[in-house]
């Protein structure tokens, strides 16, 4: 086996290892980039601003971060807990569908209102609309 071939062969072997690590770094980079775009997209989705709240939480004026899908209700396990007696345990769900916000009542006792109107089926919520659950009022800001 001549020397040049042996050296080249070792070069290929080292290149293999090197490329593996390069791939890992690139993949990790692509991952962090996509994570950033995803959460940026999420942040730009919107926030709820508390307009009226009879209980101590949430405080009036508080800005609530929104995820892609948010359950709202009296129960503490909800994404957005609203400890008001007039709210049902699982009252409503606010979620994004293809870039637009939709609110759906989950069979609550007192109903969910958008801009004062009780919703019968899932309704779109636009920037500035107000959602009322029990005695709590929240405004969507995008």
């Amino acid at each position, binding site marked *: *086996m001549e020397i040049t071939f042996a050296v080249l062969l070792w070069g290929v072997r080292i290149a293999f290892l090197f490329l593996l690590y390069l791939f890992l770094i690139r993949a990790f980079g692509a991952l962090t980039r996509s994570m950033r775009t995803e959460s940026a997209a999420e942040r730009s989705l919107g926030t709820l601003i508390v307009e009226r709240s009879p209980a101590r939480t949430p405080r009036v004026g508080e800005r609530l971060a929104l995820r892609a899908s948010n359950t709202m209700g009296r129960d503490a396990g909800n994404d957005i807990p609203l400890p008001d007696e007039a709210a049902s345990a699982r009252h409503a769900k606010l979620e994004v569908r293809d870039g637009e916000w939709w609110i759906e009542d989950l069979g609550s006792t007192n109903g969910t209102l958008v801009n004062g109107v009780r919703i019968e089926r899932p309704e779109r919520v636009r920037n500035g609309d107000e959602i009322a659950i029990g005695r709590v009022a929240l405004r969507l800001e995008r």
Partner: protein
Amino acid sequence: MKSVGSNVRSLTIAIAIAFLMTSVGVGYWTMVASADLGSDPFNPRLVSAIRDRPRGKIIEADGTVLAESVKTADGYTRRYTDRSLAQIVGYASFKYGASGIEAAYADSLVGQDPADPLSTWRARYLNEREEPGSVVLTIVSKVQKAALDALAATGKKGAIIALDPRTGAILASVSLPNYDATLVSDPATEDVAWQQVNGDQGKPLIDRARSGLYPPGSTFKTITGAAALESGVNPDTKVRVDDPWQADKSWGTYFVRSSSQAHGDYTMADAYRLSENIYFAKIGLQIGGPKIAEYASRFGIGAAPKCDIPAARGQLSNTGTLDRPTLVADTSYGQGELLVSPLQMALAVAAIGRGGIMPTPHYAQEVRDSAGNIIRTIAPGASGQVVNPATAAKIRDYLVGAVEGPGAFAFGAKIAGVHVAGKTGTAENPAGPPHGWFVGFAPAESPTVAVAVIIENAGQGGVDAAPLGGKVMQAALAR
């Protein structure tokens, strides 16, 4: 209720930790344990150059081939010519690894001797392997044959080892029972042979000469006597011996027994000639346990001899110290909890013969390349001054008396025309008849051979072993 999302996060952390621990585990095997694994005799990488390429020869100093690779239909396999050297030369099997010289000189036998780093580099990176040369052993065939014949004639298990006290070169080494290493190395027969050899009650795989451990019996008295002389004991002072003996009532039912039910006054010379246990027990207690331990250690008892193939350590006692008077007494005449190998005793007695200088043993003398040029010489030199020359001379004289004097037990080792120094030993063996020892060297004034013989379960103990020693030394003197 926690959301699925947060549970996913917790699970991911647990998984990441598990991966980390696994990486540490992998790191341990690839980097920390790597050296140990690499030198494990069963690692096929060690014996990789067996099947595909011819492996180097192992030869005796006079050129006799002991091991070589022969080509068969499936590749190369090892063939061994001298069964009596099976435990020294070893075997080399792709499946079962290697032992003896085959293992210890594995690198040299594949053409990658450490004295030639370029060849190792070429082999690893360029896959270019040198034509392997050979490893030349120190064994002398005439002496080996004499040893084999002598031991085989007894029909018992045991070992004989002979070395040159000036250089430490091993001239002969026989361990019975032995086995056929060719069968163990040949892929066609290796599985059956391996089962057989491992299952054999006689344990033929063990080299009794360097790894068999036995109580030394009276041969240990050489060390006790040397220790006494250097501690100021006067060898000419007569010591009363009455059989049986105990130091005081605290010994209870334990007594030191004399081998000849002696009653009399003994000098050290008498005690050697008649191998008197009580004498040595008394002076052993006189100089004390720590002194005996110190000299035992100087003579290499309890430490593995620095040899080119691994040898056994043995022990001075179970704890390494002599903490009880009865143990001191017993150890002084060679029983107690002592365990030594024939190699260790041969080295001890060689030191006595060489004015107190102990040689370093070695089984190989040189490594040659394929053209026959010497790449490396193995000559480790002396391992140290164990006792001063005057002490050695005195003990030597006593040992000559133990062979030639009136009533000497080792009379069987006499050689016409030469002064032989030696000592028999009869090691008590709880499982059966005692083992018979003989250690000695010749010519006594300036020895060229030192020998140690052990016969397991010998009928008359050391008296049976002495003639074997004599024959081997005679053959060695004629080389």
